[in-house]
């Protein structure tokens, strides 16, 4: 059963994306680890699986970034501070921030994909001395679609982090790179022998990014992505989220690519 949480703040990131800060009314869910998701319940409308984009540590609120694409997600993005929302979870697997200890880290984010990656980026930057080079490649549709601009700028100011941003479409007012995020991969200059990559974004973008990473010599065993499938329960009981023999809610959403390489490109699997 969902636990009631109170919305503290709603930040409109783009035309259809909002970030909600929330805190528990009574009992709290266990602390979500980077990569996990919760089932958010909009009163009377339903639930949707949403990745946690900010963990409630050190007094911070629980944060979710939601794109309004259907009845439930639209209802969630329209909540106002003070209103309540149901939260269940956290569910799912975690980004390999532990396994990637001492590695170089390459984050590849597309569009809304930066939201599920953000807790991993924050974790890596908060434990900076445990990792080698840290780079983030971020692609969106256009400059107006970028998430977390202030935080991106803060990250950029850290001299030992590389942030490369690109957009698919732009006019002249955008002075940065234009082109797909995969273009940034050959130029990222990472050492495939010591790098772990974490990729998140629309499925097509992840497919092309993985091809690009493979082309640059990165093995599948150090490539991780976050999958999305229809979910109703989040617990492996309703059967909907199956991807081959895996339940995306149990063996995912974060999966190591070598586990699914054989079916990732099979149509309608």
């Amino acid at each position, binding site marked *: 059963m969902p636990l009631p949480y109170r919305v503290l703040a709603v930040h409109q990131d783009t035309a259809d994306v909002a970030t909600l800060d929330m805190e528990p009314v009574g009992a709290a869910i266990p602390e979500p680890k980077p990569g996990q998701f919760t089932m958010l319940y909009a009163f009377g409308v339903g639930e949707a699986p949403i990745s946690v984009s900010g963990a409630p540590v050190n007094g911070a609120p629980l944060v979710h970034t939601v794109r309004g*694409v259907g009845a439930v997600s639209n209802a969630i993005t329209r909540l106002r501070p003070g209103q309540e929302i149901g939260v269940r979870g956290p569910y799912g697997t975690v980004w390999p921030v532990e396994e990637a200890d001492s590695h170089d880290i390459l984050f590849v984010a597309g569009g809304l994909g930066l939201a599920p990656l953000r807790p991993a980026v924050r974790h890596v930057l908060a434990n900076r001395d445990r990792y080698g080079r840290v780079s983030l490649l971020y692609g969106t549709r256009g400059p107006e679609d970028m998430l977390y601009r202030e935080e991106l700028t803060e990250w950029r100011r850290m001299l030992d982090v590389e942030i490369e941003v690109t957009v*698919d479409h732009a006019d002249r007012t955008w002075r940065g790179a234009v082109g797909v995020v995969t*273009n940034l991969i050959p130029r990222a200059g990472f050492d495939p022998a010591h790098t772990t990559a974490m990729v998140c974004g629309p499925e097509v973008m992840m497919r092309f990014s993985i091809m690009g990473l493979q082309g640059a010599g990165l093995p599948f065993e150090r490539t991780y992505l976050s999958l999305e499938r229809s979910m109703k329960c989040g617990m492996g009981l309703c059967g909907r989220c199956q991807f081959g023999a895996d339940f995306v809610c149990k063996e995912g959403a974060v999966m190591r690519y070598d586990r699914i390489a054989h079916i990732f490109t099979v149509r309608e699997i």
Partner: protein
Amino acid sequence: METLERIVLEQKIFAGLDPEIGKLITGCARNHHFEPGAYLFHEGEAANEFFLVRHGDVALEITAPGRTLVLGTVHDGDIVGASWLCPPYRWTSDARAGTHVRALGFDAACLRDKCDEDPHVGYAMMKRFMPLMVSRLQAAHLQLLDVYGRPEGA
């Protein structure tokens, strides 16, 4: 080895190039510097010279009434312009320097002639330019898909 020849052979795209061929194509090359905002070429012009960016950012643009759209940006080590490869040898977009740009300019007609004269030169060039064009095309496809766009019916 003369300086320009060295610079040519240093470029990633010419890695592994037979030094004799390198010398030959250097004969078609010269150094350029562009100020920020300067045009490398304009849409519709004859594609007489194409560029290899040594350092800097170049935006490929199309201008429609009232607005200018950026098709893509190219950076260090990239080639600007493919229209020199095939008739009618005319540029299909503008190329504008976003920053200070140092580039190698190659005389397209000169290089085409050298390729015709010696198939080895032609093949060495084709092996290098073809993969570039293919991955540009793939990237353009992905850009077209608008993967971050609003899903249908949403």
